[in-house]
């Protein structure tokens, strides 16, 4: 059974059809890219999987459960976490507190909510969050305000916050956007390490070189419809994909799109 299955999913905004008859599956442990020209509906697909938008038609199954109508806050508990294209950290919280938000799915219950952990030196939440930051090489930033950090660091904190939630599947919305070559390389290594722990990755990304190295499978959508699916080489060979990209803004396989 697939970990994630979109079954004939459709989404309209008013009269505008954004996603149409979209079906694809992601197997547990896979690294899959969702690509397509600008405005193809990629981010919308993420928003449908995470419940930000309700579906107009179709179903979403995760780990054997129909999550089509599940409230969005319940989905992370099943194992769906995501990062954000335009980094969405909490500006009024420190870095370590942002990471602690990622612990939320594991820290349920009223008692956990009302434990004055900040009065308890070495409380395990703080220790765990600091350990995660140290492991990611971000320990030096732990007590700083998020807003004071450089872009690349914020991007990594945003990713780490999602990882800390221990998801089965991680949805990454343009993780490499705005990163320089070295940062992109580090990101690749970090994501491979996450995948090695058995986390399934679904990536929306414009950097085709990055996608080619990271992902085993590619799903291409255009105007909200799936136009191709397979390995990068297979997808590149598809005339539909060539047409979509040549008419669009980039060439598949040109490295940076």
């Amino acid at each position, binding site marked *: 059974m697939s970990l994630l299955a979109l079954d004939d999913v459709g989404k309209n905004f008013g009269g505008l059809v954004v996603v149409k008859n979209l079906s694809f599956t992601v197997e547990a442990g896979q690294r899959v890219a969702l690509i397509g020209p600008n405005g193809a509906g990629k981010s919308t697909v*993420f*928003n449908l999987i995470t419940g*930000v*938008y309700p579906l107009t038609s179709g179903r979403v199954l995760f780990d054997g459960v129909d999550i089509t109508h599940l409230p969005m806050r319940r989905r992370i508990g099943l194992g769906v976490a995501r990062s954000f294209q335009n980094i*969405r950290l909490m500006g009024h919280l420190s870095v370590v507190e942002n990471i602690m938000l990622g612990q939320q799915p594991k820290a349920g219950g009223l008692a956990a909510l009302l434990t004055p952990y900040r009065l308890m030196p070495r409380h395990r939440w703080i220790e765990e969050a600091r350990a995660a930051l140290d492991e990611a090489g971000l320990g030096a930033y732990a007590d700083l305000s998020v807003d004071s950090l450089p872009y690349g660091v914020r991007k990594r904190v945003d990713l780490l916050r999602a990882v800390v939630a221990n998801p089965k599947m991680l949805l990454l919305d343009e993780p490499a956007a705005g990163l320089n070559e070295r940062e992109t390389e580090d990101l690749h290594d970090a994501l491979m390490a996450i995948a090695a722990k058995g986390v399934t990755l679904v990536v929306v990304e414009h950097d085709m070189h990055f996608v080619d190295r990271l992902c085993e499978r590619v799903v291409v959508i255009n105007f909200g419809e799936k136009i191709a699916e397979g390995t990068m080489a297979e997808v590149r060979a598809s005339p539909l994909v060539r047409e979509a990209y040549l008419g669009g803004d980039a060439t598949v396989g040109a490295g940076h799109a």
Partner: protein
Amino acid sequence: MSGAVFAQQLVNGIMLGGIYMLIAVAFTLAIGVLNFLNFSIPGIFMVGAIATWRALENGWPWVGAIAAGLLAAGVASYLVERFTYRWMRGLDHEIPLVSSLGFLILFENLVLIGYGSDQQTFPALMPDFNIRVAGLVIGTGQLISLVLALVLVIAASGLLERTRIGRGIRAVAENADTATILGVEIHRVVPALFILIGLLSGVSGILFAMNYLQVSAFMGHEIGLKGIAAMVIGGMGNIWGAILGGLLIGLIEVLSIAFFGANRADICVYGALLLLLVVRPEGLLGGSAIVREKL
């Protein structure tokens, strides 16, 4: 209650609604264009009336005194723009709201320091005169106010539709950033809008003073707060909604006084507002109030 008495109450409610209408339009312009709940409007209402009263006390002719009141209201509103909206574009919507409350307190207390907290008598422009139509008594002053309010609101709406600056204001209402890109000079359009808001509030304050023949530092409270209720009930950002809301609030107030007594009127007026906010926050004529944010 007999039919004739009821009809008279309806007339009274509509007349009262005329006063709320202008204030509601001022509120709705600030909300609709700038997404700014401008609590300084009751203060500007009062500033317009007080300035007119002072000028009259100093022996100015009516025309000059009214001009002075309008000027004071326009300047006050411009000051509010200078210190609230201009600084805070893109910040929490609460910040300008808070500053505008600061201005309300500032205006009221400056007037208190200058002229004390007593009600001051406002001279009568015209002798009290009632018209009788089909058994209904209509106060001339109130009727003039209502007609003037409608004319001004329609004029303001025409200003928004037809003039260059009006088109600029509407472009800003759609999307401030896009408007800037399209060449709308936001630094001229927004102050112009505030001055318009100030003038509407000032006119409404002066009309109120002419009708009730008194002014005080806190005269804006009740009217201003009911103006907010009127704006919300009609639908925030909708000028015709503000007119409808003003009339409805006037009617609710007059009829609840007639049926339940003066002490219960506020329960009905604000209860209606609360109920509407719960069941239909977008108001009677407004579009959808709930805009889902995009990731």
